[in-house]
């Protein structure tokens, strides 16, 4: 008997005569209401991420100022990132085409991306490798991640995000910069992922 058959037989024997149990979902499910920008901003800031709220016309300027502030020279810009948002002078936009090696990614100053969904209640950004987001490693290896979130992408809570996302795509949910609390439960930002997360909310 294969282990597969053995395990399934054991499960069936264990469950013989056990009645099924129903599931009630009385909790707050997905809502039609959009997520509040103010709450999202506050919750992202709670994780010690840097947050700005700008108008569409102000995105490129804000991106440029943020990169200049960090002294960034080479920034990965994934395919599909709106070119109008990246016009930073003196900063080289590095494309991931052909795909950069992990060592290449380790050598750049940061990455700019868009996102798929953002969650107000938890201050979370979700990336699904769609246009402007790139593959998963792009937002992981560089030490700095700047993410542009459009107001329409902000949903109220976790159930709204789950409903909007496609499980067939690899997803990365990001809530603040990389952090650990393993040493005496003191929160330290940046262990292996980006140590700085900057979020631009486009009103």
């Amino acid at each position, binding site marked *: 008997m294969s282990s597969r058959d053995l395990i399934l037989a054991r499960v069936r024997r264990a469950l013989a005569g056990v009645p099924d149990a129903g599931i009630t979902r009385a909790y707050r499910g997905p809502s039609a209401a959009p997520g509040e920008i103010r709450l999202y901003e506050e919750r992202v800031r709670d994780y010690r991420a840097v947050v700005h709220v700008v108008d569409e016309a102000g995105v490129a300027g804000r991106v440029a100022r943020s990169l200049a502030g960090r002294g960034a020279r080479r920034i990965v810009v994934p395919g599909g990132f709106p070119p109008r948002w990246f016009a930073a002078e003196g900063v080289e936009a590095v494309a991931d085409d052909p795909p950069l090696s992990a060592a290449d990614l380790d050598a750049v100053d940061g990455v700019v991306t868009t996102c798929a969904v953002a969650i107000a209640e938890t201050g979370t950004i979700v990336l699904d490798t769609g246009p402007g987001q790139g*593959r998963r490693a792009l937002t992981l290896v560089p030490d700095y991640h700047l993410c542009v979130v459009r107001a329409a992408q902000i949903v109220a809570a976790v159930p709204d995000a789950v409903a909007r996302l496609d499980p067939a795509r690899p997803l990365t949910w990001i809530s603040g910069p990389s952090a650990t609390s393993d*040493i*005496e*439960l003191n929160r330290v930002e940046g262990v292996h992922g980006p140590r700085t997360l900057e979020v631009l909310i486009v009103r």
Partner: protein
Amino acid sequence: MSVTFLGMPADRPFPRNAARAVRDSQLRFNLRKATRTIRARRASVVAEAPDWAELREAGRAIKEHTLRNLDRYLVQLEEAVTAAGGHVHWAAGAAEANRIVAGLVKATGETEVVKVKSMATQEIGLNEALLEQGITAYETDLAELIVQLGDDRPSHIVVPAIHRNRAEIREIFAEHMSGWGRPAPEDLTDEPAALAEAARLHLRERFLKTKVAISGANFAIAETGTMVVLESEGNGRMCLTLPRTLISVVGIEKVLPSWRDLEVFLQLLPRSSTGERMNPYTSTWTGAAEGQEFHLVLLDNGRTRVLADEVGRQALRCIRCSACLNVCPVYERTGGHAYGSVYPGPIGAILTPQLRGMGSELDRSLPYASSLCGACYEVCPVAIDIPSVLVDLRSRARHPWPERAGMAAAGWVFERHGRLARLQRAGGRLRRLVPRRLPGPLGGWTDTRDLPEVPRESFREWWDRTDGGRR
């Protein structure tokens, strides 16, 4: 069924392990500080969720429903993962799981693997098994790294190095990092930020070059074949995305029926576990994502035995959040090592003896490693009634002989009221002779309790003498 291996020696019973732990004042101080901090944090984010009770009920019900249809959901999961380009393996026990993983690693031609923190692989002793096959497994979670470098054992489900303070961690890094790769900086201080930075530098090179990774999963979605890993540091993302081959060892109880069920568990788990609204990183992937080779190893290792137990099967609902550890007055004083298993605390006290069976003295003692105060049940996000399972397991563990002798004697006395009355009269007369501490093996009881004073006369005698206070 053979004895289930849980990766740890089961030599001494819990009370002896605990007695040693409570004498360690450094350990007690570390634990007290950590559990109190995390308890307060959890309470505040749980209070923030207006529908916590409803989420908890849904979490309980979804898990219960899944367990009762586990065969169906496991087959569905297998089909979905395979359809998405992944490979599914089934392991009935620890040895088989280790053999499968070692074989998969060998097939890649690699001798080094990076690991995301995983209870399942600790449970089966995977690192040791791989080492016997010439494969070195590097733990990449900061706390697991501290444990691995210190040749130590994890003592908490979510914060495995909770028993260590910063000075101890600094010493471990300074002394042992060089033996595993990049040494710690010469001027390493015991500031948490400096220690985290040392770990970052130590592991980064390894992440960038290692071609095989091993993980567990918090959830596996039957409907879509999606794996879900929650973490904080980014080491999980490193392992899940950079290597060419990814092997996930997952207990069969981790399956959830549908994608939608995540809306419940992505709220319950982070808030219960680390007291955050959301953990910094959650990764999900379905089959061979982004061209990776993906293997899923489904692990039984005693779980079907637990499933067969009417009262005890609810332990399989556990989502490993550790909230029960952090509120437990027994865990707070003894720490995780006293439980002699990778699953410590209240959940360990019911899960370990069920997975492993009650063959050893330690496993028989675990159902007694509790004051039955019920705090664990209160905080459990999937409402596992741990106290009830403890009591049920106690009824199956043979009680210590002094207790059995005492109970038999009490039974004899209470059988006839004349016997009780005679004994009470004798007690009243000899009350000055009753010692403060009970003799012999009964002394264990009075070590932690005051013996009640014996009254001069019994209630019945008082009633006869005074006619209920009217004379």
